[in-house]
């Protein structure tokens, strides 16, 4: 099943600068495994050492948080959109002052 994975701006640098990637997957776990197999650098930004999704990264299938579906076993089908939504903190000052 062709599923679109939307890559958020902060993580695009680790995903070939792509806005979205299409993968053939039946579950969220499969889709993310394929994604991180293709973009190895992305793995440490999405998953902790124990293989669980990091707590500052949420994954949505369409508009629903997978934590309230079947987590990474949530099934996906043709045309579904998986969104990776990390926390971002910017707002007040130049976000790049830290270098």
């Amino acid at each position, binding site marked *: 099943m062709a599923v679109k994975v939307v890559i*958020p*701006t*902060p*993580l*695009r*640098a680790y995903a070939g600068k792509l*806005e979205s990637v299409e993968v053939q997957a039946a579950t969220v776990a499969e889709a993310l495994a394929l994604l991180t197999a293709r973009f190895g*650098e992305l793995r*440490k*930004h999405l998953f902790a050492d124990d293989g669980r999704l*990091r*707590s*500052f990264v*949420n994954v*949505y299938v369409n*508009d*629903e*948080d997978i*934590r*309230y579906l079947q987590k990474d076993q949530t099934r996906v089908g043709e045309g579904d959109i998986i*969104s990776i*939504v*990390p*926390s*971002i*903190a*910017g*707002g*007040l*000052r*130049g*976000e*790049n*002052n*830290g*270098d």
Partner: protein
Amino acid sequence: MATKTGIPPTQQTDQPAVALSKEEILRYSRHLIMPEVGMEGQLKLKQAKVLCIGTGGLGAPLGLYLAAAGVGRIGLVDFDAVDSTNLQRQILFSSQDVGRPKIEAASERLHGLNPDIQIDPIEARLTSENALEILKDYDVIVDGTDNFPTRYLVNDACVLLGKPNVYGSIFRFEGQVTIFGHPGGPCYRCLYPEPPPPGLVPSCAEGGVLGVLPGIVGAIQAAEALKLILGKGEPLIGRLLLFDALAMRFRELKLRKNRECPACGDHPTISQLIDYAEFCGIRGEEAPLPQTTVPEITPKELKARLDRGDDIFILDVREPHEYQICNLGGNLIPLGDLSKRVNELDSSREIVAHCRSGKRSAEAVEFLRSAGFRKVLNLKGGILAWSDEVDPSVPKY
């Protein structure tokens, strides 16, 4: 899921009836002739108290629109001074404000816009010690800060006080907006129980922000704050609005209250404010500079060695768009490409790596040394230090 609109009943201002002057009626006439606001709504605005945390990119349109709308009392919290890099997006400030405390310049501007309202300038850094005291006087809190410790602090303080937190956040050309902490609705910790560890937040190479983005996101926050006060419409409670200015697309995701949330769940474990710097893995007030263990060369030393004709390969590990801003004539290999282009480097030559401030190039030096390069040094302080110590004609950014 909360569907109730408006300020929680406990927060409703309980003041004697107020009236609008003739001048105010004229000023707010475009609100008054609209049934969704009307006289009743305008009086609610006049009695409302909103706290804006941060008077930067998000706080600018927010403050301006709240003041223009006639919100009777606006608190502004900031501790920073205006600098020239703010002017690209922080439309509260003028060129002549550079160097002034933001609170002072912002208060003056908002007073000028609407002399009938009260501005509370609070020149302070929000901390666990002062947050509850500062927030408790306001009906609606609007978070326009720029760092994770303050985000969690504002969230927890709002949950503890039962106050709605109109949240907005931006990165490059993408924004997030929602309302946290409304009774029955989710809080920031329901969405993100923990912050990212400092090492995993994107580096400055991916930073920056389209100047108009905080304008749009801050204006949405202002709209949500006004709707909460008026008790009209569908507030952004339980919905995360994502905005992409590049695609010019809005999307909406569902946010649910997490029953296991440590702040607002069924059995909360957070009963007081904590040390948020520690919670976010940051020691001290500011983000720590990375421990520099890589061998360095100062800009002056490098200049002296280049002047005497030493054979040194200058490796610039910034991004191509940064090279266009200014460069030292170095060979550009962005840090992210270094591992696959390492074969372009000659390990027998001496290499000095640099970036903007020296952080990314320290990573590059560490990587190259682990790859067997022995004669590789980091330019201490990067191009910024080069501009300060060697060649002031090199622009800083």
